[in-house]
């Protein structure tokens, strides 16, 4: 162990982190998957979804924002945490209007895939049935806020990667919504090649005329559960 290395454990597995890495970064590199939705490896963490909440030395904190420290004892894959995570996913399902069978993102949607991975059968919470707006004004990009989970990935990507600040929040609490930097999307500086368009975990921001290029059944999470790519880095599966 060198001075710029940090060693800690997650569910008893020893993880080596580079100095300055967060827990989720170190775990991703080591092949230990912690469920997450708002976190994206190319963006600053924002701590919205709380799915990556772990017990860190006995206290709950989000793995995406917590820097790894020597000797930390992290619990992640426990029945209690996974049950709370499943409730969070349920909350996001009932907060918006998510109709997986008719959604062009089905099979490629991180919310849907997390529902499967965390074994959510059907929401047990009451649907809120909000009225949400669509924005189809842009020639190449479509926004369907029915599916927005307020993860701020697009906001962060547009600001820090694209340098455009096309997106922002509006309002607060349960009335918070995704806002754009103009009356409608076609009046903004956005372009289909922008990072902001490609980081949406759900079917809220989609590129027009591409939704069904890959048929249902052949998409990312149709093949294997979300997180499998990370877990593949650790132990090659037997058999």
């Amino acid at each position, binding site marked *: 162990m060198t001075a710029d290395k940090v060693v800690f454990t997650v569910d008893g597995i020893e993880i080596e982190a580079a100095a300055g890495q967060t827990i989720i970064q170190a775990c991703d590199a080591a092949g230990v998957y912690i469920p997450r939705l708002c976190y994206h490896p190319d963006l600053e963490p924002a701590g919205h979804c709380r799915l990556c909440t772990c017990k860190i030395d006995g206290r709950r904190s989000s793995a995406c924002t917590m820097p790894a420290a020597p000797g930390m004892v992290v619990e992640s894959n426990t029945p209690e945490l996974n049950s709370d995570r499943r409730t969070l996913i349920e*909350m996001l399902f009932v907060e918006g209007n998510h109709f997986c069978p008719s959604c062009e993102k089905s099979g490629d949607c991180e919310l849907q895939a997390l529902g499967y991975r965390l074994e959510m059968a059907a929401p047990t919470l009451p649907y809120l049935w909000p009225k*949400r707006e669509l924005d189809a004004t842009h020639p190449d990009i479509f926004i369907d806020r029915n599916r927005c989970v307020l993860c701020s990935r697009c906001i962060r990507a547009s600001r820090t990667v694209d340098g455009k600040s096309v997106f922002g929040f509006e309002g607060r609490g349960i009335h918070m919504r995704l806002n754009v930097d103009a009356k409608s999307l076609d009046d903004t500086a956005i372009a289909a090649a922008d990072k902001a368009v490609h980081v949406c975990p759900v079917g809220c921001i989609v590129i027009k005329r591409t939704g069904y290029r890959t048929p249902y059944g052949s998409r990312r999470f149709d093949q294997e559960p979300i997180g499998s790519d990370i877990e593949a880095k650790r132990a090659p599966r037997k058999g």
Partner: protein
Amino acid sequence: MMASDTGETAMATTKPNSSAVTSEIAAVVDAVVKEFGADRNRLMDVVQAVQQRLGQISDAAVHAVAAGLSIHAVEVEDMVSFYAFLNREPKGRFHIRLSKTPLSLMKGAAEVAQAFAAAAGTKIGGTSPDAEFTVEWTNDIGMADQEPAALINGTVVTALTPADAPAIVAALRQSQAQNTLPLFPGFGAQGAALPQARVEPNLLQAGPIVFRQGRRGDGVRAALAISPESVIQQMTKAKLRGRGGAGFPTGLKWKLCRHSISEAHHVVCNADEGEPGTFKDRVLLTEIPDVVFDGMSIAGYALGARHGLVYLRGEYAYLWNSLQAVLQNRRRLGLLGSNVCGREGFDFDIRIQLGAGAYVCGEESALIESLEGKRGAPRDRPPFPTERGYLQQPTAIDNVETFACVTRIMEQSPDWFAGYGTRESTGAKLLSVSGDCPHPGVYEVPFGITVNELLDLVGVSDAAFVQVGGSSGQCVAPKDFGRRIAFEDLSTGGSVMVFGPGRDVLDVARQFTEFFVEESCGWCTPCRVGTTLLQKSIEKILGNRGTLADIAALEALANTVTRMSRCGLGQTAANPILTTMRNFPQAYEARLQPEPFLPRVTLREALGEAVAIAGREPAAEEGMA
């Protein structure tokens, strides 16, 4: 229609109707932006000043502000849309905001609100056709001891009755006040005909610590006589803990802040007294503001900070002028500014930042975001504010009352201070007592007082339950009135609400839950969605539609919201439900239905809209009940 939709509709329809209007807006915004040095961190001041002068923050104003500060319009909207007191839409010349809390409703606020709406010629939540009045509800305004209370363009009126409304409305109508919106301070005087603030001080028991007699500046001079490190040691020796409710050791906080290396350090006074039922900071800032400012100066010396900031909740805007006068006087006396108290090289001054109606800004990291002109969304920690706070520099944030204690510790001694209270909770505590109580007001009592002793002191003999610690605190049953008010037992930032016989404990829990729905910042899933789901669930039980299965589901949901939320707001938002479940199970049981499951709504309710549209009842079929 949901609020989110109205925002969109309005954006599409309100266009600047003439170039003259647009250029007037541009000129006003331009002047305001210049006044605040085109500093993006001063966005809160900028938009408040714009609203003060133009009556609202219109689309044109948003764009002008964005251009003036070299940011995007979406960033201005992001911030403005967060705060309850910032208006994107035009409001009446007089904006009447009535305090809606369990206590105000107990004292007749619903009837008062109706009377104001009727006199003003509008409905609650609306603006009169002549654009003279807007009548709305707002959350607790820090006047729990004199409800029903209201803010009228920022001026506080208290102890209202329905009979007061016509006279007040008539006086306002005749007033020449041209400033159309909350008379946020610093921009012109109010019309003389406006009702004057009638806030009773209500300091009913001055104790031996905070409200002892002292001489302005003595605490500062005592601090300057020793080293900054020694000042911090004195706080540790006194075992002073933060008075806002969390009880973090002040000495440790200051030590961590002082040891963070940075170009500058900041001292912030948290005067965002938003916890329902609390008003002791109002009394401190009214009665002994110098003692609070002395404490901030002492902190400035101890931390090596030159800048002090008071974050004053928007509801207390009426204190602005008097506090500014106190600060000005302190500058004149050499207690602020360069070489404070003649100490070469110790420069310290204080600025007041006014908030704009957001409970969450009492959370220290949300407060910092708000100070920086952003929406009041809390930050993830670490880093803690003592390391990276205001402007990413080390910041010590302490409650108003904590700073008053700091001054007293320096004036007297740590041992003297620690001689009061309990081992874990030294000193005295200011309690704001309100509700079914003959003498509501502020009482300074030693830590460790039992609920029973407190009730005796305030003259209550028949309390059915007592809410200690505000909406985020605990609902205490008579069997627990022997418990002590102290950090190690019943912790409170100062709110004690007394409820007498006949009050419905479940309905109070529902109202507190609704408060959290309105005040959740929305940043994280468990709090944003969870508070609304908690509200729906307790409404179902109160509506006699709940079963045993609902109780189990509600408890599980409440625990998830508590465990998974990002900040203290969400982590305590389920307390009204969890503590009433624990202490008043019979109140829930009494409303439960015997069925294994009942749907949230009846078939009749579900079909109500369709029946109204069709104009007839549905044809009855077999099995439809």
